[in-house]
């Protein structure tokens, strides 16, 4: 039990845990103390003096150690001057006055002073309408200034801090929130103060400028319009926007977001998404999101989206009616029967996947998940259980990250793992190369490519690392497929699962296995019964393939070849992908932003998203398309509301038992309080009113004992003498179907590049930044060369989803660019 302290704030008795700051204690009691520099997610800095209050403590008699009494009441010793509520910690008997005449005068003067160097361009400022400075000036400001207008401080008005964020130096009130966020929360100290006094200004000291994948969050917590996003620049006034609760679909973290939408003349009168804002979920993303989630939403409005069904006639894909297309697809699948194959991507919702699975079962066909990370069946057994919150991990706990570059694959997990390490959790990073997580790790274990499973199996035998794993209060293991293919990551998953099972770290909160999947709902697909296929090309042979939300042909020329050799190909997609171009029937799907549904995050949390914009052209939701095909085959599939599909799902799949849309929409009070009228406190993050989501029941928590999975002994391919081995790695900003429409991210996506060791480069006569020609899997591609001395010689890192055919470690030849 934490020790409690009782104090009085504005005459109200407040009891809070010891160590609470006065400003937070007041907030908990419903009393607002104005702040600018203080933010509940960061240590106080006491820089802006906005939170001035009168503060007194009971006088203590030095001789007796007892409070001095006056008329039977403890005598209060008032601080001689106003004190900052954000830096003072509560103590028993403390008396705080936040609205007394003296306190108000102090607050007024601070505002008057701040405004002497503020441009007051509220009418054109993107923050106007949700601006803490505006609001506090109205509530606490003096109304008149004693300072001379002509002596106002002027500064540069639009300074690009990188391509994503704009800085208006005149609007900055030097609260330091952005600087502190980058240093303390994001761990990427790329912003700083420069100069001094009135000339103090924010600068970025990284190359490229503001090189952080969390930069957008600074625009949320900046208490003025000094930092705004390039994406939303003059997009709309905040009060004109409608909001829809949703989830980020870019990675398996499942960050809660809000889409702000508006009907727009520029978009031809369509309702479009104008910006993505974080929505608070303290157990998932707290109040943050990464820049990919914030800026890569433009695919919904892309004109390149498929508009209507297409059917191949005389070798050409031509527009057709839904009836025709569905009839044809159904006829082809019926004819194929058991020889059909359903290939689904993890971008689909649980409802979509459930209908696809039922269709596959009805046909007796195979249902395959399109992914390069294996081991999901183990995650369904010993994955995270209800009550898990990464924010609870700290001293005495251990986090193991294996074959995974969390920073690029799941940024918010990276952030939260880093924070757990900051709180004292032991972080063990096991990888073939250096990643950004290394500098926060207690132990970094490197293996030679091919040795990943052996290394993981040997961890327990190592003294300190073994102890850290065995004796961990809680043990979390993240794994993915960094440098590996599906088989490699399946072995890694098995080795990780063994560590957890052997040391008894499963079946309870904050313990278990987490797959860092390439998509938002891969975990859902595993739970529903989809399994990846080790040799997909062979499996496709002669099959009638129904592909939803996956682009195998675009990713790998071998799969394109396999699809050409397959029987009929039916593709359900957002865009005319390479795979769709090979299809016989193309079914245009609605984006997830245009409909309702649920995703299962990598932490096995099922969360709901809501429709934000109307459906594009003639598209239909994925589950509806599947259901309508199924109905033509005489199967009873639900094409009504997604909630109805979900009900069937919960009735059939044990892990989902007991869940319902209503349950997923439940909320609990969260701390810090954000998103209300007091934007100055937590920033412009939205309050979560639409559901925190629910963890799936882990088989292991239900008492089922998991069996130790067998770990494949054989190792993956190793680099050979005199030959380079290309290993696939994941890049945050890639050319994924849902990323590439975001023009703003172009520079961050960059050109395809391989990374090699400087010595290897020297041998080949290549320099950093030069172009080279690579040969991979029988294909030639031009790439940029990057150097990194932490990667093993003989290995080249090749990014996935950048147009390079790298689905598995494979030999690579490098030559000079033509």
């Amino acid at each position, binding site marked *: 039990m934490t020790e409690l302290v009782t104090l009085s704030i504005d005459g109200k008795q407040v009891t809070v845990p010891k160590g609470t700051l006065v400003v937070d204690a007041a907030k908990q009691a419903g009393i607002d103390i104005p702040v600018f520099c203080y933010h509940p997610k960061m240590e106080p800095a006491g820089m802006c003096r906005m939170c001035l209050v009168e503060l007194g403590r009971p006088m203590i008699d030095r001789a007796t150690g007892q409070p001095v009494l006056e008329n039977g009441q403890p005598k209060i010793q008032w601080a001689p001057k106003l004190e900052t509520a954000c830096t003072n910690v509560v103590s028993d008997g403390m008396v705080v006055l936040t609205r007394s005449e003296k306190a108000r005068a102090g607050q007024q003067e601070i505002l008057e002073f701040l405004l002497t160097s503020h*441009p*007051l*361009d509220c*009418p*054109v400022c993107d923050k*106007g309408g949700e601006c803490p400075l505006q609001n506090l000036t109205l509530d606490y400001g003096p109304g008149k200034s004693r300072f001379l*207008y002509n002596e106002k401080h002027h500064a540069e*008005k*639009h300074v690009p801090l990188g391509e994503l964020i704009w800085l208006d130096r005149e609007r900055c009130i030097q609260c330091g929130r952005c600087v502190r966020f980058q240093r303390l929360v994001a761990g990427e100290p790329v912003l700083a103060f420069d100069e001094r006094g009135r000339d103090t200004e924010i600068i970025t000291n990284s190359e490229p400028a503001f090189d952080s994948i969390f930069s957008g969050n600074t625009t949320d917590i900046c208490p003025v319009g000094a930092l705004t996003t390039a994406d939303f*620049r*003059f997009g*709309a*006034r905040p*009060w*004109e926007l409608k909001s829809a609760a949703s989830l980020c679909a870019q990675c398996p973290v499942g960050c809660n977001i809000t889409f702000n939408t508006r009907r*727009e*003349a*520029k978009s031809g009168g369509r309702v479009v998404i104008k910006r993505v804002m974080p929505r608070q979920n303290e157990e998932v993303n707290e109040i943050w999101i990464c820049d990919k989630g914030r800026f890569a939403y433009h695919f919904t409005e892309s004109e390149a989206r498929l508009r209507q069904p297409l059917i191949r006639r005389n070798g050409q894909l031509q527009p057709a009616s839904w009836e025709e297309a569905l009839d044809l697809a159904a006829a082809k699948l019926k004819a194929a029967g058991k020889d059909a194959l359903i290939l689904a991507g993890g971008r689909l919702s649980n409802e979509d996947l459930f209908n696809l699975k039922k269709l596959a079962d009805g046909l007796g066909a195979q249902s395959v998940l399109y992914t390069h990370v294996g081991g999901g069946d183990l995650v369904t057994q010993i994955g995270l259980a209800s009550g898990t919150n990464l924010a609870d991990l700290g001293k005495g706990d251990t986090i193991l990250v294996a074959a995974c570059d969390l920073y690029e694959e799941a940024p918010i997990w990276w952030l939260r793992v880093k924070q757990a390490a900051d709180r004292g959790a032991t972080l063990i990073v096991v990888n073939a190369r250096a990643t950004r997580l290394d500098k926060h790790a207690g132990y970094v274990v490197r293996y030679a490519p091919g040795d990943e499973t052996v290394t993981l199996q040997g961890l327990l035998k190592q003294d300190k690392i073994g102890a850290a794993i065995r004796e961990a209060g809680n043990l979390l293991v993240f794994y993915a497929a960094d440098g590996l293919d599906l088989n490699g990551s399946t072995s890694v998953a098995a080795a990780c699962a063994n560590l957890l099972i052997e040391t008894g770290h499963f079946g309870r909160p904050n313990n278990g296995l987490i797959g860092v999947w390439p998509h938002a709902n891969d975990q859902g697909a595993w739970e529903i019964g989809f399994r990846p296929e080790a040799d997909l090309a062979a499996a496709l042979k002669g099959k009638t393939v129904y592909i939803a939300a996956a682009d195998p042909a675009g990713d790998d020329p071998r799969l394109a070849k396999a699809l050409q050799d397959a029987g009929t190909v039916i593709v359900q997609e957002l865009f005319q992908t390479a795979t769709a171009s090979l299809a016989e029937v193309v079914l245009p799907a609605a984006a997830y932003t245009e409909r309702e549904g649920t995703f299962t995050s990598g932490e096995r949390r099922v969360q709901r998203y809501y429709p934000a914009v109307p459906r594009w052209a003639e598209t239909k939701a994925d589950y509806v398309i599947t259901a309508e095909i199924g109905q033509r085959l005489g199967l009873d599939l639900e094409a009504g509301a997604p909630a109805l599909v979900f009900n069937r799902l919960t009735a059939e799949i044990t892990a989902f038992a007991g869940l319902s849309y209503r349950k997923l929409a439940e909320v609990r009070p969260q701390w810090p309080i954000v998103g209300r009228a007091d934007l100055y406190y937590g920033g412009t993050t939205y309050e979560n009113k639409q559901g925190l989501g629910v963890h799936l029941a882990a088989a292991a928590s239900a008492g089922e004992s998991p069996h130790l999975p067998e770990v494949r002994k054989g190792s993956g391919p190793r680099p050979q003498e005199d030959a380079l081995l290309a290993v696939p790695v994941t890049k945050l900003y890639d050319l994924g179907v849902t990323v590439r429409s975001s023009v703003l991210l172009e520079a961050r996506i960059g050109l395809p590049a391989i990374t090699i060791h400087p010595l290897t480069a020297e041998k080949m006569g290549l320099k950093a930044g030069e172009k080279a020609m690579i040969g991979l899997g029988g294909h030639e591609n031009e790439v940029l060369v990057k150097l990194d001395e932490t990667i093993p010689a003989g290995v080249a890192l090749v990014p996935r989803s950048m147009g390079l055919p790298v689905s598995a470690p494979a030999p690579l030849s490098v030559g000079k660019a033509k």
Partner: protein
Amino acid sequence: MRVVEPVVELARGLATTLRMIFGEKPVTVQYPEEKRPVRPRFRGRHVLKRYDNGLEKCIGCALCAAACPADAIFVEASENTDEARYSPGDRYASTYEINMLRCIFCGFCEDACPTEAIVLGDNYELSFTSRREAIYPKEMLIEPVPPGGQPTPQKTPPGVFTRSVPEMKDSQD
């Protein structure tokens, strides 16, 4: 007695009638050939004003739309550059529409405007034959370029028009 009184009353009434017929000048205005000047505070159709150099006063802030009790105004903003400048400062209204069927001519938009860009003018001749026509776009609302000014967009020297909101004296009629 009873006969005399009504006759007198009748004569008085008739006298008024006759006086009106022959004595009063007609007040009828031969509209539309003839128009009566409006009062100084008359609130007629809106005009979007320009500065003397031709730049638009409107900066696309949408405060008028926010103030409008009838939700008659729609504003969408875009960014100015020195290559193509519509208004001083960063921002201008790329779409500005007023739905004259919704407008109640309250003048709140005038009051809300930080640059005195939108002004309810003298024009009361509003007629349209469809709901669509009742929506007046920016081209219809904006006043002509004053003599000596340039049409927008203008190419302007860098660093001159950096501020959106000019310093203004207390606004007048």
